[in-house]
């Protein structure tokens, strides 16, 4: 009964918005229309590779497009390093440092040269072609297809040449940058210079090979090393200003182990934008690229890392082993979606309505523009994340496990119906979703399951089952654990669920705001009413609590909130009887359950923190271990249902948010970070969180999703072309 109450209250709160506001809202949504990519425009670049000789293709004569045409010769990377060394800024640095440290300039210069050698790329087209050849051979074995929205890429290519171009891919796998280079090579665009982490550099041979394929190296942290910072910055800026190759970096800073978008990092972005603020480049075009994998090659690695199972060091031999492993698994497709190019100049003059001034700069404004822009890029990546059938299936299976684990088993037929239903719903939400037509749903689902046999299987009776044998935890028990050393049985059941959660996480950015709102509405009292203002306040609270879990950018909170309300209205609350009530409840339950691992995990953490003594000081590792152990206990006792709560990523995100909120006190003692708890504050947060958390909501999924009322959906999605598309493919 709670749910029906809730429906009414939501309806009334929505209708409280006047029609005028509504018009504004709709306009707002059409401006921020989610993905503008058409699923039908994808081309499989491997098709061509399977038809003709790889060798001929790799050795073909080509004249790749440069990102920023220069008048001088740029082909020699060593000349490039020399130019950086002789630049005004480096000259000044050498003078200053030599004066400061009272060392001769030649010695400082030598240090700079060493750093330049450490950083520098060593473009070598022959090596690139050879590596490319090997890569193509491998990639054809690994993937069925690499899909690219070719029309957009060709347009981008056509417009290149007048200013630096920066590719900003999302980072989910090591394959991201390899595939990027493969695609640019396929489309005859110069291979981008890639900012790579130092861990690659230390790999035997690979470090140097990647250099020749235009990788340059960046330390994870610059510390207080002023020389390194200046040299690196000058190197990067010189690449933009005087180079003619595209630039590529991962704004998330690292591979996202959890498959969620990570909040943007601003260090490198700030360096990239400075030449623009100085007027040294006329504009910088940023190209957000969204990678989606049917099957992330590193999924097992990530799941283990999230659980704290020790991670092997990256080395060439482990890479080779990994390559061998690859042959045995079926990895499906990789989808590379190129987003709308963003001209930074236009972004700040049009979107942020600020006037350019390269002479009288405004540092604080530049910083806020950089932050805003970083979020804009991540947002653009998110918009174009493709949701494939396995992502949908993960949601369906995950939900089933949560509410029905002990009860009925999930039949393929039922799952297929739900996947088709979800595909339509997410389309209506504005996501870029693989269309799942009803009559092909079962086949699609079976195919998806095949790609993930390590975690999901179908038995003879047509029942979907989590594979528990794929992961052998005993191997790891001896190693040093990152957090708490988990019990074997917990690990066995947690592993497949965490892997599934990776694919659920991939879609969460579309759903998290509507889910938060749904959860809040769900927990309103008997009255079931809430003003929009109150709702927004509560929404902001949850966002602030999960600000490290999901990418929330505070200045955009209101807009995101309004957009989400609108989406909710589109799919679940409609006046009149067009939609069956059953459909509402189903989606509501699903949204709440999607958020369940997070709210319940956070609540458990808070409760555990409540029991700690205020005077105790905890190191980060101690704290995480304690919390993870507590969560394991709760899981075993059945108070917690979802093993993803064990995720160290979730725990550390929670700690970070609580620290920001001031609930946890963070201090640095002798160089190590220490935490202590503030009892009053933790009590308050816990009670607020308690109001929002209940167990998973059961809803009989098999009841009515088969007889989905398509007319109703048509009515909903008139204002949303994406949705119409999704539905028409279903019809």
């Amino acid at each position, binding site marked *: 009964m709670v749910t029906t109450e809730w429906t009414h209250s939501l309806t009334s709160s929505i209708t409280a918005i006047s029609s005028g506001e509504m018009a504004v809202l709709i306009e707002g949504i059409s401006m921020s229309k989610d993905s503008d990519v058409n699923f039908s425009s994808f081309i499989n670049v491997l098709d061509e590779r399977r038809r003709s000789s790889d060798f001929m293709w790799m050795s073909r004569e080509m004249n790749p497009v440069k990102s920023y045409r220069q*008048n*001088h010769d740029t082909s020699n990377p060593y000349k490039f390093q020399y130019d950086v060394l002789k630049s005004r800024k480096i000259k000044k640095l050498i003078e200053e440092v030599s004066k400061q440290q009272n060392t001769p300039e030649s010695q400082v210069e030598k240090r700079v040269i060493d750093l330049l050698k450490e950083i520098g790329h060593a473009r070598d087209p022959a090596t690139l072609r050879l590596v490319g050849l090997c890569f193509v051979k491998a990639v054809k074995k690994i993937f069925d297809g690499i899909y690219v929205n070719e029309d957009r890429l060709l347009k981008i290519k056509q417009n290149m040449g*007048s*200013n630096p171009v920066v590719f900003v891919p999302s980072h989910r796998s090591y394959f991201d940058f390899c595939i990027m280079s493969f695609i640019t090579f396929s489309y005859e665009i110069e291979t981008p210079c890639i900012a790579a982490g130092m861990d690659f550099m230390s790999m035997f041979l690979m470090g140097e090979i990647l250099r020749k394929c235009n990788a340059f190296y960046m330390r994870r942290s610059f510390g207080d090393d002023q020389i390194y910072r200046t040299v690196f910055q000058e190197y990067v800026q010189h690449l933009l200003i005087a180079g003619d190759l595209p630039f590529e970096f991962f704004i998330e800073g690292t591979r996202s182990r959890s498959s969620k978008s990570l909040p943007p990092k601003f260090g490198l972005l700030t360096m990239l934008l400075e030449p623009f603020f*100085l*007027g*040294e*480049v*006329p*504009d910088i075009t940023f190209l957000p690229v969204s990678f989606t994998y049917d099957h992330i090659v590193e999924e097992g690695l990530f799941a283990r890392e999230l659980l704290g199972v020790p991670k092997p060091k990256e080395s060439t031999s482990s890479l080779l082993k990994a390559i061998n492993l690859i042959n045995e698994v079926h990895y499906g497709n990789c989808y590379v979606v190129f987003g709308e190019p963003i*001209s930074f*100049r236009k972004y700040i003059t049009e979107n942020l309505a600020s*006037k*350019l*001034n*390269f*002479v009288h700069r405004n540092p604080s404004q530049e910083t806020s523009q950089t932050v805003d822009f970083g979020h804009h890029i991540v947002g653009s990546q998110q918009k174009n994340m493709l949701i494939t059938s396995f992502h949908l299936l993960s949601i369906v299976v995950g939900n089933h496990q949560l509410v029905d684990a002990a009860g009925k088993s999930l039949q393929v037929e039922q799952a297929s119906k739900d996947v088709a239903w979800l595909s339509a719903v997410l389309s209506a939400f504005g996501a870029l979703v693989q269309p799942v037509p009803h009559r092909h749903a079962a086949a699609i689902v079976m195919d998806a399951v095949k790609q993930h046999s390590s975690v999901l299987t179908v038995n003879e009776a047509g029942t979907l089952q989590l594979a528990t044998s794929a992961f052998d935890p005993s191997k790891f028990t001896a190693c040093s654990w990152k957090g708490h050393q988990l019990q074997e049985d917990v690990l066995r059941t947690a592993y497949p669920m965490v892997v599934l959660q990776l694919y659920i996480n991939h879609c969460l950015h579309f759903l998290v705001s509507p889910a938060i709102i749904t959860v809040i509405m769900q927990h309103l009292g008997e009255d079931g009413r809430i003003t929009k203002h109150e709702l927004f306040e509560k929404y902001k609270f949850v966002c602030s609590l999960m600000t490290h879990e999901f990418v929330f950018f505070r200045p955009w909170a209101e807009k995101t909130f309004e957009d989400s309300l609108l989406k909710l209205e589109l799919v679940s609350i409609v006046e009149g009887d067009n939609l069956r009530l059953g459909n509402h409840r189903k989606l509501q339950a699903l949204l709440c359950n999607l958020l369940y691992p997070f709210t319940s995990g956070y609540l458990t953490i808070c409760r555990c923190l409540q029991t700690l003594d205020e005077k105790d000081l905890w190191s980060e590792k101690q704290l995480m271990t304690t919390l993870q152990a507590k969560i394991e206990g709760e899981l075993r006792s059945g108070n917690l249902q979802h093993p993803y709560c064990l995720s160290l990523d979730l725990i550390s995100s929670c700690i970070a948010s609580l620290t920001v909120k001031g609930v946890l006190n963070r201090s640095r003692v002798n160089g190590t970070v220490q935490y202590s708890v503030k009892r009053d504050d933790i009590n308050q947060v816990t009670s607020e969180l308690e109001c929002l958390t209940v167990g998973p909501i059961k809803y009989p999924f098999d009841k009515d999703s088969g007889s989905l009322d398509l007319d109703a959906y048509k009515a909903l999605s008139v204002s949303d072309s994406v949705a119409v598309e999704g539905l028409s493919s279903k019809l």
Partner: protein
Amino acid sequence: MKTSKDGVITHMCSGRTDSKDEDSVSENSAAADKNGLAGGVACLSATNNGNIIQKRPPTVTKKRIDVLKWNGWGYNDSQFLMKNDMAYFSGRRYPIGDMHLPFLVQWAKDSVKFDPKNNIPSRTLPSPDEYPKPIIQSGVLESIKSTGIEYSLDGVDRLVRAHGQTLEDIYMLRNGPMPRIPDLVVWPVCHEQVEKLVELASEHNFVIVPYGGGTSVSGAVTTPQHESRTIVALDTSQMNRILWVDKENLTICCEAGMIGQDLERALHEQGLTTGHEPDSYEFSSVGGWVATRASGMKKNTYGNIEDLLVQAKMVSPQGTLVKGLSHVPRSSIGPDFNHVILGSEGTLGVITEVVLKVRPLPPCRKYGSIVFPDFESGVKFMREVAKQRIQPSSIRLVDNEQFQFGLALRAAPTMFGAVMDHIKRSYLTVFKGFRWNSIAVTTLLFEGTKEDVAAQERKIYTTAEQFKGVAAGEKNGERGYTLTFVIAYLRDFAIEHFIIAESFETSVPWDKTLMLCRNVKHCINEECKALGIEHPLVSCRVTQTYDIGCCVYFYFAFNWLGKSEPVQAFERIEEAARDMIIACGGSLSHHHGVGKIRARWYPSQVSALGVELYKATKQRLDPANIFATGNLLTPKL
């Protein structure tokens, strides 16, 4: 010819005699002559120790269309044409006159998709009944008649004084609707007549727009469109005498309506020159130079107009403003009121007489040119030249686009010439490693004694070597300068074939120069892209060097075939480009002035207090807004 009592011989200008033929013009010149002369000399109180004999009549007559195009730039007889599928320049006034230009069309096809078949002819000169009826407030005509000053109500006379030379002006003349034009044209012949007219304006509350050579590219002489009062175009062209020449101190006094080429011609006969040579100097007037703060090509030797100006007289509704009584080299007597007159753009009064510095004609004049691998090295070279202060009279740097364009304006080479060209080109590209499509060229003009010139050359060419410059001979340099005056004709040719071509300029500190050039070019390209304009041609050159910076000129052209409203498109692009210039630390204008088309940026350039100061000046000198030109500050409607 007529000898004045002070011994200055002036000519009777044709304007004063031929006006008898015109019905609507009354005349009473003799008295005015006398007054003007006496007044001028008395007021400026100089000793006169030289005689001037100006034999020739002024180049531009009162009936301007007899000599000049009514709907374009320059002489009627000089223009680019298509002849036998080849570009051709008519007339014999210019070095490329009466010549076929075999490379021009191909160049234009490549760079802006020029197609000689697409032709959009100008309308013909409007017939007398097509002009708007003049708005004449009662009493105005009678009072002007009573002064004896010549005037005209004729449509053509009014139309040709309704505009300058902005793209908007020319497009309006050729194809646009008839705008508001002046209601009356008057031709005062001396300072006193101007004083009389301004007095009448205050009395009858009519508007005066001073009109000199009509070469403004800022909209400054364009008739204010929203003015309801009678607008009188005050044509200064009949005030065209050199009043005296002081060879001892090397100063002259001339009336403001004298145009550059007439002044120079007369001075040359005396072995003198002002050395002031703006690109418009064939047609622009001395008064106009002062009113817009003009700059000449050879300012390195002679200075810009503010350096040349010793004294100016300006008639304002509240009296005549003139600084000092003697012509001293400099003074420390509070703020310099010459600088109220300089750059006043006709908003404060009419400039009537001007005392300028002059120099003896240099005995030796030599051209030169240097080729650089790219524009960047060229700019670095220019900066070094300025740092060492070794500029010759003129030094300019053109980018690759203009270098290519310069080549396109060649006449057909001889067999031998073609071979030589090939050898030179190979020398640069093969031996020097230059890329043909990134080369930039500096053109040089040296003036002075033979020894001076030789010394200057030595310094310049040695400095150039540091920046990988290669001397490219006198011929190329000379071509660069002689083409200066021809390029202005190209716009009319382009506009006839759906191509909008225009230029604008700025001044910028050295360290921002390259950044500005790069960003403005990019900005124009992007703006064109946004407007769906393909293949714009954007080019720039550095035309002046100073201690702290330089003057940069931008040229751009685009084909608007298939698009409507080219003027709006152009204005949008120019506005974006100007915003970009300012963002890059460039000025609103180096020498074109603010006028109407750049007025919206004026407040941000001079600060709010600056605007107040200007307004206070305007209020004091012209409280009734007689000079309602709408320049500098956009009038509130």
